[in-house]
């Protein structure tokens, strides 16, 4: 079976969980002999790991030889204004770019190079909605030209591409919900993104959600019939051999780490408040907030206000190996997310033998047993869990030992097998 898959990013050019998850899934699928994946991203850089799949960039597909039906797609999307919270993942570099590019205004023309290819940035900039529309346009062409049995689109940025390919080919469409705008926005949903998401879900023949939490959002908030939505949990890539650390722990204190985008979705303020409570009772502990995001300044102010900045540190955005080093230095990892469709990062922490506290409002909480689960808003419970894990060693010893085993059993090939079952189910349904 040949699958045409649409994503938005692919390692190493990623800025969040979406790229990691798509990559892991395709890696898992490469172990299946009966599934062949053609993965499309807006822009291929050429240095992606293509051992598992064939990757093409939409920007490499010439469109000159087709009559372009640009208008129909542009009409649907080009009225969108880019609001900052619409952008799912952002690092400081991109943040800068957005500020500087806003001045340029919205130019509405199609960039085509001399060979008739659309130029994609593949990033989350202000031209995002144009790019989505263009991506869908090219997807329609790919849909006509390529041979495949079904279409699989990852997250809202790729839904229009999936729909276009479905319209062009008549093949069944599966969409994979890694997050919804309800998770990203903390409730104040952008109606235009919601419309794109809902349209994708309605056009899909089957929807894969990354957790039951996400599945119920799809059913309840988007009005999708429950029988159309299945849950397939994410997994985690086995830990590669990692060189001794570049960063070194210079203090004897215990280190409690928050690692992620500092945005409302991740609940950074609950981490600070819990840290404040713990610091009132014990001193030999330091709290690290690693990452960046639109709430960072506010968080620094809050930490200063609570007078804990001698024990509460901000690292800014961490890249590559620094992330692993940060994890290895940590005595405790905490993910107090307000709404987390899945959450791979606690699994990565557990791989590094770090005990984790996760919010009950996360998909990963549905499958982990060797983790402390708390409601994100229950600051006292978070503080108590931090204190307990740092002061009663039996707990962290147990988590390190069994958590590692538990996380090693969450394998992408298992997720891939479940996705394949969904494929067969959809294909058989089409026949009958």
């Amino acid at each position, binding site marked *: 079976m040949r699958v045409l898959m649409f994503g938005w990013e692919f390692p190493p050019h990623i800025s969040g969980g979406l790229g990691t998850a798509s990559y892991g899934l395709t890696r898992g699928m490469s172990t299946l002999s009966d599934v062949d994946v053609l993965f499309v991203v807006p822009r291929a850089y050429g240095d992606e790991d293509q051992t598992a799949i064939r990757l093409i960039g939409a920007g490499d597909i010439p469109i000159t030889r087709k009559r372009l039906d640009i208008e129909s797609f542009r009409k649907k999307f080009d009225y969108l204004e880019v609001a900052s919270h619409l952008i799912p993942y952002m690092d400081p570099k991109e943040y800068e770019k957005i500020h500087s590019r806003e001045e340029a205004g919205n130019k509405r023309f199609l960039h085509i190079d001399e060979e008739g290819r659309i130029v994609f940035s593949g990033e989350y900039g202000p031209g995002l909605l144009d790019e989505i529309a263009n991506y869908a346009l090219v997807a329609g062409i790919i849909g006509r030209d390529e041979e495949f049995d079904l279409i699989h689109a990852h997250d809202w940025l790729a839904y229009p591409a999936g729909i276009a390919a479905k319209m062009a080919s008549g093949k069944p469409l599966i969409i994979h919900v890694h997050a919804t705008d309800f998770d990203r926005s903390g409730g104040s949903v952008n109606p235009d993104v919601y419309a794109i998401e809902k349209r994708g879900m309605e056009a899909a023949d089957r929807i894969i959600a990354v957790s039951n939490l996400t599945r119920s959002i799809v059913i309840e908030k988007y009005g999708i019939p429950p029988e159309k939505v299945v849950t397939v949990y994410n997994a985690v890539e086995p830990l590669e051999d990692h060189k001794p650390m570049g960063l070194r722990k210079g203090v004897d204190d215990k280190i409690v780490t928050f690692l992620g985008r500092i945005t409302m979705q991740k609940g950074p303020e609950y981490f600070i408040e819990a840290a404040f409570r713990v610091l009132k*009772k014990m001193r030999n502990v330091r709290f690290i907030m690693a990452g960046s995001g639109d709430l960072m300044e506010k968080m620094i102010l809050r930490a200063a206000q609570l007078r804990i900045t001698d024990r509460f540190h901000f690292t800014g955005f961490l890249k590559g190996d620094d992330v692993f080093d940060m994890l290895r230095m940590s005595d405790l990892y905490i993910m107090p997310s307000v709404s987390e469709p899945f959450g791979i990062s606690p699994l990565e922490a557990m791989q590094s033998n770090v005990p984790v506290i996760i919010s009950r409002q996360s998909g990963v909480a549905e499958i982990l047993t060797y983790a*402390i689960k708390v409601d994100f808003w229950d600051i006292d419970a978070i503080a*108590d869990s931090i204190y307990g894990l740092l002061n009663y060693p*039996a*707990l962290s010893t147990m988590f390190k030992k069994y958590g590692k085993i538990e996380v090693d059993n969450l394998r992408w090939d298992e997720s891939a097998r479940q996705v394949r079952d969904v494929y067969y189910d959809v294909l058989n349904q089409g026949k009958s």
Partner: protein
Amino acid sequence: MKTICLFFQVHQPFRLRRFRFFDIGNDQYYYDDYLNESVVRKVANHCYLPANEIILDLIKKHQGKFKVSFSISGMALEQFELYAPEVLESFRKLAQTGQVEFLAETWAHSLASLKDREEFEMQVKMHAERIKTLFGQEPTAFRNTEHIYSDEIGAMVADMGYRVMLTEGAKHVLGWKSPNFLYANAINPKLKVLLRNFKLSDDIAFRFSNKSWNEWPLTADKFVSWINTIPPREEVLNLFMDYETFGEHQWADTGIFEFLRALPAIVFDKSTYQFSTPSEIAEKLYVVSAIHVPYPISWADEERDLTAWLGNPLQEEAFNKLYSLKDKIRNLDDPGLKKDWYYLQNSDHFYYMCTKFFSDGSVHSYFNPYNSPYDAFINYMNVLSDFMIRLNAALPSTSEEKELARLYQMVREKDEVIKKYEEKIRMGARKPASRKPAQKKVSSRKKEGTGTTRKPSGKKTGEKSASDVRKKSGKKAPTTGKSSGTRKKSSK
């Protein structure tokens, strides 16, 4: 003679309240009164009161032929006194019939038998005395917490003068043997051992209302037809269960009370069985053999071992931390701390920390106040940390004595400072700004100086103010009181 031994466990733990780490050292009350009271009230109304009434009726009706036995934990007795005295009264009525035997157990429903003989014996004694005062019986039969038993525990119980002990008819201990005989302890054969027939006990306790069970519905007739198939040489049928089976685990609308009400008459009509209490059985029947139990067994979970309470590192840690305090407790004469010491030993606290998520998770969650075993562990350890602080304060060892003395001194000093400031405020109020500002400045500084000198004990005033000045000026200052005055000026 063929006989049935009906035994019921009655136990309610003192569940802990949510005790956060910031309560450590600040709060000394550990129990969730509201939860405990509502559970006890609920179970009293659903189970204890109606079941006791039925049993009382049955005893009267069958005139000396129907007999039952109970083990009521000290924790349950205390909570009945607090929240449901009428339950105690109804047990007393049962005791007065003479057909009901009350067994001894550990006062705190504790796991002390596994850790400390002295503590164990003391708790058993406490419980036996309480049973005597409440029900007028001196217990001769013994039942350990959750039917925990081993050869050694049995020998310990025998040494205390008990003649019979109840435990589980665990498969891995019995092998091909039947639980329906009277056995004896392998070390001290004077102690008879009764083994629970878990198949027939659990048919009532667990499966009674299970509609997917192929024997559902279970009637007294059907049950008696089963016990009639037991070979005639097997003389004793031990039916041991939680008393909460009646009306709580199995709700009244399942027909469990009707079953209980009908059972004795049908047993007498359709079988040759009688009812006896454990001590009677120990008296009347012959021992067939010794039972070898080298490792402790219990009646809990599939494994019938200790893993429900001591099966993971969290439980071990909490258990060992708790019993590391036992020597200190022995020298203690503080009723409040003693009480907490017993309440904290309750086996349920450890049961809540069990991480056998899958096989027996549902039983573990019954009346469980915690979301997860980790939650249970952290809360318990927070309470235990506070308890240790209080214990150390009450019984300081040498190094701690010093620390404590230091703290007391600090409190005294602070009191003095406060007194000083209060005086100052009063003086300030009495003498408003009539003085010249320059003068006022000097006087206030003087006072501050003398205020701080109180802190270190042996030092003299002059020296202290000199060192104060040294800090301010950042230079090395001479230590004489005289020159310190000049330094003061220069540092200003």
